[in-house]
């Protein structure tokens, strides 16, 4: 394997790993706020790593530029969406889950 191929595989594997972390996080974490941590961030990194792998695989071509733009938009929109969801919950007065209330899981 060439170094580039190794890098592609590493990036894709990293992407899959963080996507799995995000999925596990959504299942395991207790409430909306903590879950949106997992959904918004591990997921962003997972998608970004995967897109990075795709960009490398395309080489220096037009699709690479598009992939990079996709990356950029992921970084802009993902936090915004997470913010919108959690703010909606906050405005509705949903109390965040804390360890004091229920003890450690």
């Amino acid at each position, binding site marked *: 394997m060439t170094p580039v191929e190794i890098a592609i595989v590493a990036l894709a594997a990293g992407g899959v790993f963080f996507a799995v972390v995000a999925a596990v996080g959504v299942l395991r974490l207790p409430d909306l706020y903590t879950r*949106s941590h997992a959904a918004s961030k591990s997921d962003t990194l997972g998608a970004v790593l995967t897109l990075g792998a795709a960009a490398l695989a395309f080489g220096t071509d037009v699709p690479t530029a598009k992939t990079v733009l996709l990356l950029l938009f992921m970084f802009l929109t993902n936090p915004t969406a997470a913010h919108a969801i959690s703010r909606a919950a906050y405005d509705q007065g949903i109390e965040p889950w804390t360890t004091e209330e229920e003890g450690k899981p």
Partner: protein
Amino acid sequence: MSGPPSARILVPVGESITLRNTVAYAVREAATRAEAEGAATVHFAYPVTGRVADQAGLEEPRALLERVEVWARDDLGDEADASNVAFETAVRAADEYLFSPADYARTLNEYAEEQGLDRVIIDPEYTPAGSAPMVQPLEYELERSGLTVEEAPVERPTRRARLVRGGGLAKFASVFGASYLFYLAIGGFAGTFDFVTGAFSAAVTAALLSQISLSDAPDTRTPVRLLRFLVYAPFLLWEIAKANVTMAYVVLHPSLPIDPKIERFEAAVWGDLPVMTLANSITLTPGTLTVDVIDREFHVHSLTRSSREDLLAGALERAVRFVYYGRDAMAIASPEERRAEVDDE
């Protein structure tokens, strides 16, 4: 307009440089009408832009309205029929979001109907929704619902044309450049056809949107900021990667060691763009999630104690200040230190 102007006046209030003179004009008008008809009322209404979650959010509108009332009474002191002019102040729409001029018009219209007002005096610099031009569409919407609308004839410290605001050309050029590049990147820099259609599309986009999409014209600081942003981006990426590993550890750990809590702090960044950058950066670094931003007060949900400590240590905030204000601004104390200072006092 038929007949004499009404003596029941509504003045929408918001922070603006000509608010003081608008109040003076409204009071003068009311006094004139009071002389002719025996009585006049001026209502000062503050439509709140965002939803106000608690009482603290209402402090600013209330303080401004109090100031307006003091001004109004002050101005009235000079007029003959002072006792015949009444003032009312009101905060409106605290329980909803207002976005468009139509929203503001609806709020003001409801208020006018409720209070039986039929004449609106608008501050020509009234821009409650930030930088977007508001007065003309608002006037149009209000007139449609049968109110008499006039702009207060006040002197503005900076004269500028209505549609082409400051830096029109610079804004046009940057929006044009960005859209042209985007178009060519998507199309793959493929031939003359793309270059021509791209230039045309970018010109149309820039003509339509350059005044809306940029609040401030790019100036000499912009390239420097962009360069600094290039320094900031790897730093942010590194922070994201580092903290994601921690996040993975926390999520995959059998006992799920989390200690979530909402933290509030006043961020030492100013302006829409820096606040947006900081809020998004905070959300991207795992363990912290910006839940709400009211002016400069950040409500941040943090997943673990260590992420909370990192947040209050202020590395991100310092980096954002570096991007927008340069190296000197990095010296400002971190949120934790600022909080300690407040506690000491």
